[in-house]
């Protein structure tokens, strides 16, 4: 590893020559430094996660009793719709690429910045504008169409804020496109000398695949929202059954983006897991090429499977067969990744650090989440399980058990690099265990509810399902505590955490060769890469925090 220059305190991107409040604010709001934009996104993302989380507690609190008594069904419909939209479009899709991706990809490939820094800042402003529209909709009566906006309810029968929320999602799509476009061009054109494609960290591979989906999928959602808004405003449109239009065509166009969107949410999570497992097993990834190409395979096949959301709608049986077959094929790359991560731990030197506990939690939950996907890809099984709580449990296992665990794990892993401070290790491990336990108690009963036939989006349900809902609500409160913990001790670490050296985990990767937090221009001297991505050696313990260095 190239030599590490001794970091002078003010020699990082947080400090600015110009002092005083106005220049400081201007330096943050007009920055084109990918690291600052990553942090700006982090504030926005976590803010929306908090809102989504509050809405989730509203849902779980209401469902404790069979009758719609805490809130009536009108309010409940608005709560679950806003929970869905805020969590998906304003937390999960942008979260890891826009925060950790923005911050780390230039560092990992040895570049000074992303290819289009101004576009990167524009992407943040577009995201905040979209967030404003979403919050405006929330505070002026909300929206009750479900995050899927199915016509003809969303166009003719809903009398809630479909247009403002549609504008919010339309604008948020551009922020996603710009991030994706920036990453693809940066990865292609701005790698450090010696950094060939197969020496790049798998973090960058997965984000490359994610960006492919963001660039190629999001415009179709933009067009679908335009068509929806036109039909709602002018009372006439191409999905209107009275004109001979087909509401299922809306479902085709909507799911063409929205299924790849779930891979936009998942692949960045897998990106982080590849880094965490290798670093804390002190061992090179098992089957580097297979893990890298399975990310691409997920991105490409992800575009061919959207019909499995429409098995019970009037989609033809033949199309159901085609989509079901490809859906089974798209499940294989995810399984390959899990096998390779497990094989990486063989003959490694494993440390139970907080990021590693989150990564292992990811593995456990993602296996269940992935395999329950097979139930829903099987057409006949989906007839019984479609739009029931089985589906709710499946995608929460993937989104919350997978992406969110990876996001928090990644946040812990790169916290010293981003802030220059170490978090409290004990609390990190406790929060990992609390989140894992709370999650399982919250969402496993929903599998049973689902196969019993409890439909989604119900404010009131038959009495015999109450026991499962009470368990789920209990679990979700533990989960809420689990998520509150990192907020506390990570923010406290900013003030009280010990100073972090450049490479606290002894990890490979160019981002660890520069100071923590890195200088504005990332590297004093453009690094030259000579060896493989994860050149760990399980034999020697290496420089490691466990040796009580600080």
């Amino acid at each position: 590893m190239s030599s590490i220059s001794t970091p002078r305190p003010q020699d990082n991107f947080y400090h600015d020559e110009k002092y005083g409040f106005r220049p400081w604010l201007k330096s943050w709001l007009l920055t084109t430094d990918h690291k600052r934009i990553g942090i700006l996104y982090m504030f926005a993302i976590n803010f929306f996660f908090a809102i989504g989380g509050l809405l989730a507690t509203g849902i779980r609190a209401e469902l404790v009793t069979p009758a719609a008594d805490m809130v009536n069904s009108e309010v409940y419909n608005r709560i679950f719709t806003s929970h869905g939209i805020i969590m998906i479009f304003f937390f999960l899709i942008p979260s890891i690429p826009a925060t950790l991706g923005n911050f780390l990809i230039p560092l990992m490939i040895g570049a000074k910045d992303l290819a289009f820094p101004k576009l990167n800042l524009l992407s943040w402003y577009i995201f905040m504008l979209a967030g404003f529209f979403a919050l405006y909709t929330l505070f002026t009566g909300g929206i009750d169409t479900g995050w899927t906006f199915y016509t003809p309810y969303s166009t003719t029968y809903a009398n809630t804020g479909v247009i403002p929320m549609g504008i919010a999602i339309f604008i948020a799509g551009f922020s996603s496109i710009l991030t994706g476009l920036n990453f693809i061009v940066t990865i292609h054109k701005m790698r450090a000398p010696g950094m060939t494609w197969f020496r790049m960290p798998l973090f960058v591979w997965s984000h490359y695949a994610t960006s492919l989906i963001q660039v190629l999928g999001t415009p179709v959602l933009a067009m679908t929202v335009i068509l929806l808004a036109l039909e709602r405003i002018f009372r006439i449109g191409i999905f209107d059954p009275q004109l001979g239009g087909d509401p299922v065509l809306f479902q085709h166009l909507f799911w063409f983006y929205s299924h790849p969107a779930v891979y936009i949410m998942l692949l960045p999570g897998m990106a982080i897991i590849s880094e965490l497992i290798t670093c804390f097993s002190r061992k090179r990834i098992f089957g580097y090429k297979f893990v890298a190409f399975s990310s691409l395979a997920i991105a490409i096949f992800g575009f061919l499977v959207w019909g499995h959301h429409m098995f019970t709608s009037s989609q033809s049986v033949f199309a159901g067969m085609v989509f079901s077959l490809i859906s089974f094929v798209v499940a294989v790359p995810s399984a390959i990744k899990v096998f390779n991560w497990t094989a990486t731990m063989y003959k490694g030197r494993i440390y139970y650090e907080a990021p590693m506990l989150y990564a292992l939690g990811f593995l456990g939950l993602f296996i269940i989440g992935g395999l329950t996907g097979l139930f829903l890809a099987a057409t006949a099984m989906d007839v019984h399980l479609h739009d029931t709580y089985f589906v709710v449990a499946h995608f929460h296992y993937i989104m919350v058990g997978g992406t969110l665990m990876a996001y928090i794990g990644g946040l812990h892993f790169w916290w010293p690099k981003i802030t220059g401070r170490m978090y409290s290790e004990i609390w990190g491990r406790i929060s990992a265990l609390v989140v894992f336990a709370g999650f399982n108690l919250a969402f496993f009963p929903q599998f049973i509810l689902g196969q019993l036939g409890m439909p989604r989006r119900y404010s009131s349900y038959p009495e015999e399902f109450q026991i499962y809902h009470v368990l789920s609500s209990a679990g979700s409160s533990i989960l809420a505590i689990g998520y509150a913990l990192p907020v506390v001790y990570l923010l406290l670490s900013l003030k009280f955490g010990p100073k972090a050296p450049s490479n606290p985990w002894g990890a490979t990767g160019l981002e660890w060769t520069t100071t923590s937090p890195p200088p504005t221009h990332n590297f004093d001297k453009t690094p030259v890469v000579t060896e493989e991505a994860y050149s760990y050696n399980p034999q020697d313990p290496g420089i490691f925090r466990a040796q009580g260095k600080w």
Partner: protein
Amino acid sequence: MAQHNPAVPTQHSPHLAHHFDTLEQQYDAANAGMWLFLATEIMLFGALFVAYAVYRFVYPETFFEASRHLAIPAESPWYLRSVFLGTINTTVLLVSSLTMALAVHAAQTGKRNRLVWLLLATMVLGTVFLGIKGLEYFLKYEEHLIPGPNFIFEQANRNQAQLFFLLYFIGTGLHAVHMVIGLGLLAYLVFQSRKGRFTPEWFTPVEMGGLYWHFVDVVWVFLFPLFYLIGLHE
């Protein structure tokens, strides 16, 4: 081409951004970025073409009938028929594509004056296109072919015909919006080239503007036959 080597000393040209190492790398990044943006545009219009393909597959006769009604309306003189106006419009756009390509060539060879005139020519042709488009829309308004309560279509399948005209107005409308954005870009390029900012070493904005304009022309190349020419063969 993938990545540069720092050994070659690159004089720090004023156009080179700090995070790039050579002008070559900067241009390649801009070109790749622009083509990714055009990929999103292809998928945006693609969703419309999918809707068109679905409804044309399901209601073929209605689409032929409605397109015939659009292209050669019964009582209008030959010069006001949309098939004639559409053909003129396509020619106008092809010529504007030519002038745009010549403008990029002029930028490459450093002929600033010719560059300005060719960009202006492209803008004029673009405006002519929008004018003819506006005329067509007005004619459709007069013939009560705008979907909605006062949509008149004597044949039996009045509702499905409204689907055709909905797709027609949304498709050509979105295309017209992209034309207006293109005119804005060209105006910016004219302003910059008059100030002499573009040199044979660095004219990337002109080339990117050209790519965008040619893309809008390619979209029209597909819109024209699919909406205007499918009903003429009876």
